[in-house]
């Protein structure tokens, strides 16, 4: 057996305080002669008689070398002009936020089960919930869900709970494909049926098709701006969706600064992805899923809710509430199985929303939309570039060229431009299309350069 002696100084590890002297003292108090004795309840035949076969232990010096070398093998928006979106957007990230997130009081605390020593986290969640309500025009928001895709799953399940009986959910084909796939996974054993509704010529949902299938559906879910970048007309959709619970999905959260709210236009639930609120794209996570619902639905809400109350001295304070919905009380009958959520990202979002505030959120949205419109117009003028969908957009749109999107994008990459996301990866028959996203961070120079490089690439491909 090649197992080290835990009391040897050579066995000490910087992350583990107790060492030789402490261990001997503690064993004496416990009254056993070695740490191994404490593991007697684990049968020998399942005990390892050697160390695991993995690298390490590494010093910070070695870790920095290895991880930085890995990171250096990625090509990112840190060194390229990126026009990638499709559910993950590079917006302005205020310097203050990351530095505050490093405060141990936020970073290393856990779920505020004990409100007297967790008011910081609780009050922030309460504020976060309020921001969500103001942005969506709905009544009650929760403390966070995993991400946009699972938030949609939870919304569908919520709608099914209140619908009683109905088993059909209608989901727009223009909802983020990953979200739709995730819903399929979640509901696969629950006897529910998903009916997809496609888009019309302008890229907006096909209203007639929607009207045709909504009647017996417990819920209708659409995304706006949808996956093609097109902004949906909530009123028209709500009307077509009839009596079903109406779920709006928002994958580009800065759009709330400019677009009509689901709450004021007939929708019951808004779910989505909060990453656009200044969270790094970080290869897809951690992000933060949000859910905001009409007041009538609040007791069916999944996840944590923070409410206001007072302490014994009458002092205002905040606390986790309506917990009877949750797994730790309701167990098999809970409104969701979620426990650990995305609290720290929700905190970052609260910081972002507070710092940008009423006018900043508006300006981010307007600048993103204006710059997208500017680029879209420029690309339109490029010979043999098509914009397949004419519908109104926020900050993202589909571009079509005569050539395979992958090839065109490779050409752009050579000019240090991450030019877009091939639509063909998600929808067969769209191999010449790609999604282009623009934010307030793009400069006119970058937009002009993009247009120039794209038209050059097309001419090159043509030869």
């Amino acid at each position, binding site marked *: 057996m090649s197992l080290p002696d835990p009391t040897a100084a050579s066995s000490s590890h910087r*992350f583990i305080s107790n060492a030789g002297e402490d261990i001997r003292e503690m064993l004496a108090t416990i009254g056993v002669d070695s740490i191994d004795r404490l593991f007697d309840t684990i049968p020998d035949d399942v005990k390892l008689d050697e160390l695991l076969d993995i690298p390490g232990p590494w010093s910070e010096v070695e870790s920095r070398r290895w991880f930085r070398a890995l990171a250096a093998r990625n090509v990112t928006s840190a060194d390229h002009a990126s026009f990638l979106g499709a559910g993950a957007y590079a917006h302005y990230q205020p310097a203050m936020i990351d530095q505050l997130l490093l405060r141990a009081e936020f970073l290393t605390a856990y779920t505020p089960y004990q409100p007297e020593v967790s008011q910081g986290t609780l009050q922030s969640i309460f504020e976060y919930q309020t921001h969500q309500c103001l942005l969506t025009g709905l009544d009650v928001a929760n403390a966070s869900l995993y991400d946009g895709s699972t938030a949609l799953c939870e919304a569908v399940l919520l709608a099914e709970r209140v619908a009683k009986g109905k088993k059909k959910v209608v989901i727009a084909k223009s909802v983020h494909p990953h979200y739709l796939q995730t819903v399929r996974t979640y509901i696969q054993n629950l006897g529910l049926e998903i009916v997809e509704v496609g888009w019309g010529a302008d890229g907006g949902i096909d209203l007639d098709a929607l009207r045709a299938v909504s009647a017996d559906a417990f819920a209708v879910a659409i995304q706006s701006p949808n996956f093609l970048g097109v902004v949906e007309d909530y009123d028209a959709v709500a009307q077509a969706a009839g009596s079903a619970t109406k779920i709006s999905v928002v994958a580009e959260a800065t759009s709330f600064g400019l677009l009509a709210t689901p709450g004021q236009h007939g929708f019951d639930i808004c779910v989505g992805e909060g990453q656009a609120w200044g969270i790094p794209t970080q290869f897809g996570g951690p992000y933060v899923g949000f859910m905001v619902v009409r007041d009538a639905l609040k007791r069916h809400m999944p996840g944590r809710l923070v409410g206001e109350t007072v302490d014994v001295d009458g002092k205002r304070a905040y606390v986790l509430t309506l917990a009877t919905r949750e797994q730790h009380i309701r167990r098999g009958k809970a409104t969701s199985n979620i426990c650990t959520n995305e609290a720290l990202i929700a905190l970052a979002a609260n910081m972002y929303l507070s710092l940008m505030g009423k006018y900043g959120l508006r300006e981010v949205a307007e600048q993103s939309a204006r710059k997208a419109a500017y680029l879209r117009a420029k690309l339109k003028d490029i010979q043999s570039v098509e914009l397949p969908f004419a519908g109104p957009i926020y900050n993202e749109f589909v571009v079509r060229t005569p050539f395979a999107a992958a090839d065109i994008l490779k050409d752009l990459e050579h000019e240090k431009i991450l030019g877009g996301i091939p639509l063909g990866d998600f929808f067969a028959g769209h191999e010449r299309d790609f999604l282009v996203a623009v934010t307030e961070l793009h400069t006119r120079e970058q937009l002009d350069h993009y247009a120039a490089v794209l038209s050059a690439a097309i001419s090159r491909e043509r030869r």
Partner: protein
Amino acid sequence: MTATLDPTETNKDVAQKSATEPLIFERSKQGRRGYQLPALDVPEVSLDEILPANLRRDEITDEVEVSEVDVIRHFTRLSKLNVSIDAGLYPLGSCTMKHNPRINEEIARTPGFAHSHPLQPEHQVQGNLELLWWLEQTLKEIFGLPRVTLQPVAGAHGELTGILMVHKALAKGGNPRKYILIPDSAHGTNPASAAFAGYEIRELKSNNRGTVDLAALQEAVTEDVAALMITVPNTLGVFESEIRAMADILHAKGAYLYCDGANLNSFVGVARPGDMGIDVIHSNLHKTFSTPHGGGGPGAGPVGVSESLIPYLPTPTIERREDGTFYADFSHPDSIGRMRAFHGNFNVLVRALSYMRAMGPSGLRRIAQLAVLNANYIRARLKGHYHLPYDAPTLHEVVFSDKNQTPKDVHTLDIAKRLMDYGFHPPTIYFPLIVSGALMIEPTESEPKEELDAFCEAMIAIARESQERPELVRSAPHTTPVRRLDEARAARQPVLRWKK
């Protein structure tokens, strides 16, 4: 921070006042700005040309107008109302509140990781893919299982993933079956996840050691049982010594053994789930592998599976080619599908691998050794003062009850609150449910002996106070920013947002 004009108030009131912070919405004043953006550099056309008015909103009514100073003050002050691991012991049982190394934070912020986009083509993100591949290799070795999916973003998410795989595998075999067996000591997410995966729950009574009774299990495992979900060691900290036999019983009936790996910290590097006959296990990386809890997340809940479940793993999986390049593989026809958009909580996974590399083989084993030593030290010191409902040997945590204090009408909640006056975060309370008035203490390996001693002395002092000054304990906490809350009122007339 608002002071008061009343000179007769007590100092405590003054201090308490300085420990309150208004809502950010209450700080809003006309004209204040917390942001600046570069001036718009494209022609400013009318908004109508960009988006029809009916698709636009007007101003975001009631959103804030605050300065950068207002915001940094606000959140700095809020932070001071929290306790944290970096400030002291945070012995929440079952949560493994261990030291969160700062090197993990630094590495996760490397621009190449932080600014990579989840939909970039394979050739642009080889660094990320290799990192994910290495993390899977490492978890495979830790679990002793042949494959691991990194997609789940929390333990409960991993549970759902695991049970969905079980369901799919059984369905492939012709019958998904109806029930999941779950001990009454289990965490609430277990039954919830099983239910969302499409199963009914059958609860297993724990025996007097607090563990699963083999005979009872034998009986409970019928043809329509899909799996047993157990926690190893269980929520009392007791290791199921007969785990191998349990696995055999299940496997003999074609059922699966699911392990909730929330307590992996107690045996990592000492024993491997795969060697115990476990078919599926999730690990909460925010517990055993030190990624910060962040006030309630983010986390990650990778799931390891045995050979027979590999075909059902979520897509994509991360694979390595002969030529040493890496790619995301979607070609798994029997996969349960995608559990989340993109690649899960990538930057939590980065932190976890950073931690695993820092620990290495010897360090991982030492985690379990010291976590168990620390917990047993607390158990030894407090045993005389608090009632131990199950005195079977325990590993990384110890569960006491308030039985010795209830005669004085002092209950677990009171003890927890009083601990705050002594500067400690309370343990997990009233869980597991099989212990009435449970005080579930998990110190983790991080804690220095002097911190454990201070905690034990506080607990002992409270035990005495419970006898000699019970009202002092019942009315605790006395020194926190706020005191006991009216939780009933919060639930009766819920106020869930600020309104002007």
